[in-house]
């Protein structure tokens, strides 16, 4: 294989006079609705998750209440300060909320995700705010320089996200445990849906799609990876849905567990 480092750069016309009215956009539709909704959605989640992460209590509903629910924002709970279990790997010196120890991984995964990048570049950065609407800033270098070149670490966060999806699945399985044996309550369903949405989001990730088969040139030589790539491509096509659904559900799951833990809501048991 030969590698091409650079080619003879043929000149292009720079600073040619452009046509059309010199305005930021000629669009008359409500192009600003999308960016406004994203700003509201992400800001609401940021505010809620900050409160939830620093709360440091009422994130676990344990055997004393006949349940085994751990908030997904606190899972895995690895500090000794945790309200349940004793498999801590961080000693008693950690006195802040245990959520802070683990949230960096899912947060990093979402921050560097190709969908969320699109969402916040448009809505917060205004680069551009919408298609055919001018950028807010005069200079633009994209992801070619520090700090945005760091977006290339996305696949590492993806590796951690796989581990987290496994842990949240385990939490959902644990939610079937009741003092008298196996059962199903509303909280069980909340955590099961959470695990499903997290898997949908994680497996639909562009890095996952690349890793599982997208990096091949000859699908015919790797039929299993080709099969996997085709299935993951379906998930990937709805990545925006999975991104929002999983984000919102994580917050709702934490809220639900908090409400049970403070005694504001009785978790109904079906089976």
């Amino acid at each position, binding site marked *: *294989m*030969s*590698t*091409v*480092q*650079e*080619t*003879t*750069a*043929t*000149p*292009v*016309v*720079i*600073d*040619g*006079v*452009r*046509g*059309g*009215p010199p305005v930021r*956009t*000629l*669009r*008359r539709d409500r192009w600003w609705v999308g960016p406004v909704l994203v700003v509201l959605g992400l800001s609401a989640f940021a505010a809620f998750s900050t409160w939830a992460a620093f709360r440091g209590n009422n994130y676990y509903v344990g055997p004393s209440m006949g349940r085994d629910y751990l908030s997904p924002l606190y899972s895995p709970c690895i500090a000794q300060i945790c309200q349940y279990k004793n498999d801590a790997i961080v000693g008693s010196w950690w006195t802040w909320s245990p959520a802070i120890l683990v949230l960096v991984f899912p947060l990093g995964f979402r921050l560097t995700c*190709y969908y969320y*990048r*699109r969402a916040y*570049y*448009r809505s917060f950065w205004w*680069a*551009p705010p919408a*298609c*055919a609407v*001018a*950028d807010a800033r*005069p*200079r*633009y*270098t*994209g*992801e*070619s320089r520090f700090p*945005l*070149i760091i977006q*290339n*670490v996305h*696949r590492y966060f993806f590796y951690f996200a796989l581990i987290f999806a496994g842990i949240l699945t385990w939490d959902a399985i644990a939610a079937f445990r009741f003092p008298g044996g196996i059962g199903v309550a509303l909280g069980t369903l909340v955590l099961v849906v959470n695990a499903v949405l997290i898997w949908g989001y994680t497996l639909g990730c*562009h*890095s996952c799609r*690349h890793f599982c088969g*997208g*990096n091949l*040139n*000859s*699908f*015919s030589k790797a039929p299993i990876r*080709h099969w996997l790539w085709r299935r993951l491509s379906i998930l*990937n*096509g709805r990545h925006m849905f999975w991104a929002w659904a999983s984000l919102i559900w994580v917050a709702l799951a934490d809220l639900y567990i908090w409400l049970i833990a403070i005694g504001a809501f009785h978790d109904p048991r079906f089976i």
Partner: protein
Amino acid sequence: MPDVTMQVWRGDAGGGALEEYQVHAEEGEVVLDVIHRLQAGQANDLAVRWNCKAGKCGSCSAEINGKPRLMCMTRMNIFEPGEAVTVAPVRTFPIVRDLVTDVSYNFEMAKRVPAFAPKPREPDGTYRMSQEDVERLQEFHKCIECFMCQDVCHVIRDHEDNKANYAGPRMFIRYAELEMHPLDTVDRRPLLRGQAGLSYCNITKCCTEVCPESIHITDNAIIPLKERVVDSYYDPVAWLGRKIRRRGRRKATG
């Protein structure tokens, strides 16, 4: 259908403005039909580039009510009755006159794409590709070179100085098609990371939104290319894997 109000940009490199016309429109017509009627009746010197009138030649790209669209594929009945329809030249390229722009930037960028360089032929003198490998590349072959993806890409639309170092979405489709080709032997990743400016793209997906052929430019070409560049330059695990595989291959061949 009643007459419609058309606001068409008239001018050249020396300046211009939107001029308003009342033009008759028939049921089922597209914007290009109305522009032709305008040209035939009221503005004989209106410059407009068009060819197939079937959405396949990519000649009649324009900005209709601010959105890049093919004039021949934009039906008049999508506009509200009484709504003025604005038709302006594509914004990113230098103006020639009225609705015609100089799109040679795209052809210069196309020249920079290293050409397909196939492997040696099979012993029976043929090249073989499996259907599943062909299918993936077929999507990229649908491109009609209307250059609306290039037009809407803010990297060059809003930042003229980036033009010298940015290939743009249309060319990234071409790079992807070649990089993913099972018979090709050229590694274009250093070029993509450097001179072609792949990292300037911040994947805001406008190119995909305006593509009249519904090519998933961002998801199927640009992001996979970005991931391939990450394989080569930003992933030590992938680098180690390649080293081990290469060493294993060398040992196996003695």
